[in-house]
């Protein structure tokens, strides 16, 4: 029994996600919600960039599209983070190596999180 329970839960979650992805309007709302929640929580800790990428990725129809969505979510996070700097990335990127960590984290962490799409 103990072996059977997680697949059941997972199965129901997967079914719900499948249903969500099947309805374009629901998917758009879910994607928007994932982006807003993900960006909001990413101001608290970087781990939410991973989670945000996962949330966005789970709304996509396939793993490659999920990875692309995660990458775009990361790019959006980078763009939003430039707000205090006049949306000019050059000043941040010039702060090597800190700027490289900023760029790398922004692109890699959400994309990494989007691998969650491969779970189902």
């Amino acid at each position, binding site marked *: 029994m103990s072996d059977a329970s997680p*697949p059941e839960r997972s199965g129901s979650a997967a079914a719900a996600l499948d249903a969500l992805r099947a309805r374009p309007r629901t998917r758009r709302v879910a994607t928007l919600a994932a982006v807003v929640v993900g*960006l909001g929580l*990413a*101001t*608290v*800790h*970087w*781990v*939410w*960039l*991973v989670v945000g990428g*996962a949330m966005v990725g789970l709304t996509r129809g396939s793993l490659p599209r999920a990875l692309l969505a995660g990458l775009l979510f990361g790019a959006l*996070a*980078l763009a*939003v*983070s430039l707000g*205090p*700097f006049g949306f000019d990335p050059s*000043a*941040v990127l*010039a*702060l*090597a*190596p*800190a*700027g490289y*960590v*900023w760029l790398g*984290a*922004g692109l890699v*962490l959400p994309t*990494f*999180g989007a*691998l*969650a799409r*491969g*779970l*189902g």
Partner: protein
Amino acid sequence: MDRETTRRRALAALLGGGTAALGASSAGGLLDRFAPLSGRAWESGGDVPDTVEGPYGPATVTYDDHHVPHVEADSEAAAYFAVGYVQAADRLFQMDLIRRLMGGRLAAAVGEQGVESDLFHRRMDFRGAAEASWEAIQGSESATLTAAFTDGVNAFLDAGPAPLEAGLVGYDIDAWDPVDTLLVGTQIAWGLTGSFGTLRRAVLRERLDGDDYERLFGARFDHGAPILKDGIGGDLEGVGGSQATRAAPDGSDDTLRSAGAGLASALAAHEPPDLWGSNHWAVSGEHTESGAPTLAYDPHLTLMAPPVWYEQHVTVGDVNVRGATFPGIPFAIVGENDHGAWGFTNTGADVMDLYDYETRGTDGDGPSEYRYRGEYREFETEVQTVPVAGGENREVTVRKTVHGPYLEREVNGESQAVGVAWTGHSGTRESQAIYEFGRSTGRDDYREALRKMDVPTQNALYVDDDGILYKVSGRIPVRRVDGEVVPGDRVFDGSAGEGEWEGFEPFGQSSWDGFVPFEDKPGVVDPDYVGTANQRVADDPTYPVGQGYASGFRGARIYERLEARIERGDPVTREWMANLQRDHLDIRARELVPAILDAREQMPDAADPYLDALADWDYRMNRDSEAALFFDEFYDRFRAKTWEDDFSSMGLDESFWPQEWPLVTLPPDDEFFGGDRATVLAEAVADAVAELDGNDEERYGDRNRTTIDHQFGGQVPALNYPRYETDGTAFTVFNVHDGAGAGSSWRQVTPRDGESLSVIPGGQDGSYFSEHYHDQLQLWADGEYKPMRRTVPDDDPDVRVEGEE
């Protein structure tokens, strides 16, 4: 378990485990600091809160086009609360770094590289000195307003974004404390008067024969332009009737039981940089176009990003003062108010003595007792822990004698040590003096405030609408040996109680009874003109003042131009004062180039183009000049060829070499030239030609570029300021040196009947992301200025302090 389940579990493990591993690894620390949105390094891009609650009543801050804050309030406490808030908003990292440096807590932020500095600063107990100064000003206005300033700094710490640097390095900035402000004052005093030169001179007397020492180090520089020179007019003070009854020391006067060249070199690493100095001069209304006195001022310090100075304007009731201060100090140290303008240059007074002791016993890593006036006493000791970020904490034993700190170093397997007495180690009231300068209503008022400026010893120059006051400020000890007044340029026998300062209490409150009386310090009231550039104060001071003055090239140049102008009868204008501040004629070149050209026959043909350029040269170290480039390349080689061999053979490194005046003026047949200066000149020229023919430089500006860097610029080069071509050397009035990384740190021109001008080498805002990070640097490099108005801009305030008094 099917393959799909296995794949999913592996993927889940990768996601969960990878994220957890990332967080636990060093990469997690980097992400905490630099990840987009949450990285604490990026907090500094956030806005400074534009309203803040304060307990002292309302105030407003309006920044002008160069980010100079104009603070308005009904009470001084409210105003200085606002000053604390804006200084923290613009320079918090710098303020924190200074207190960390002076308090010996640098390594706690930057790790191993700060350890040596921390050990020295702990042993010197500068924090203890600042605590004594805080005690000394209790009950004064400056103490009250320093407390308000502190509250303002901490209000920003609570509400404002953390500096970028704290995020880059990953450390927290603690709450500000009033003693931290006094510690910044101690840093200024140390930077201007701390010197182990006495030990170097004692070593030199030990190694050189008497004639050589006298010729290179003992003789007065014969430039003929002391500050109080003939012809400046006015009523002189503190000159004539010399109280010094013993001649300059020879080797037999020094006590070097346990100190030597190794210790001198080791301690030199913690001394303020060489060539810190300053210029200022003033001209009375009798010789100005408008009939009002005028002042020009530029202090020369290490140039850094952000700049050492912070400009501010405060207006409260009748007080309307604009000037520059060191971040962390509430009040404008130099500047102008409605009644007058003032500035300071370094006097070069000797206010630090060194003592050698007989010691015995062992306590940890040093002796346990020292002999003092016939009996052995235990050192006052305290074991302190120096925290080291990312490294092993260190323990340091802080030892003190009756005179002050006791510094030890392991040099080539043996312990070398010396005791230190420094006026800045006592409780001092410079903070109250600086506060009163801003409120002064004329020369008499300013002079009274000057009495409280116990440290540092400075050439104080003040102009009001009626005239000029020049006065040496700061406590200057009177030393006696066998009842006779002696200069302090020797290592005294501490065990014998030799050369002690009467009325001095290190880390306590001094009576200053045995120090030079205020009226007996050199000065002049109502001169026609006066100029200072760290040269000798006077040829015949009543009491000995100092031992290490600048070579005098800048001072001589200032006086020759002032005198020429006045003798011609051309009235002085603001533009002429600015022109003199931009003067980059180098007297070293004027002295040496004729000798170089005379030796032309000994030089290679390849030198011809350069020598032709020298022949047509006006001796100005201008960025467009090929001759200036060549002279700069030549001079360092000439200097090394003259001194290196002789001093190396005595076991003395470059820090022991003489100043530039002897090098430029020694007779051509001097033994340090091997009896033939022409040959030394020719060799230096040949080497310079080979160097310049082998590189791409064609003009002085190709190498004389600003190199003004941030403390973390080695790790994060973007924090460094851009490189701009500029003019000048360490020995020109327009002062730029050390690879253009040191020089004029603030330039001010003040006509008492018109608008003043000022500029700093960089920008007001220490935030790398600010448009004011280095918006004045190009102006500075080009010798230009911005207005220094004492009117608040009409714009809406940028910060409002709200609350009831």
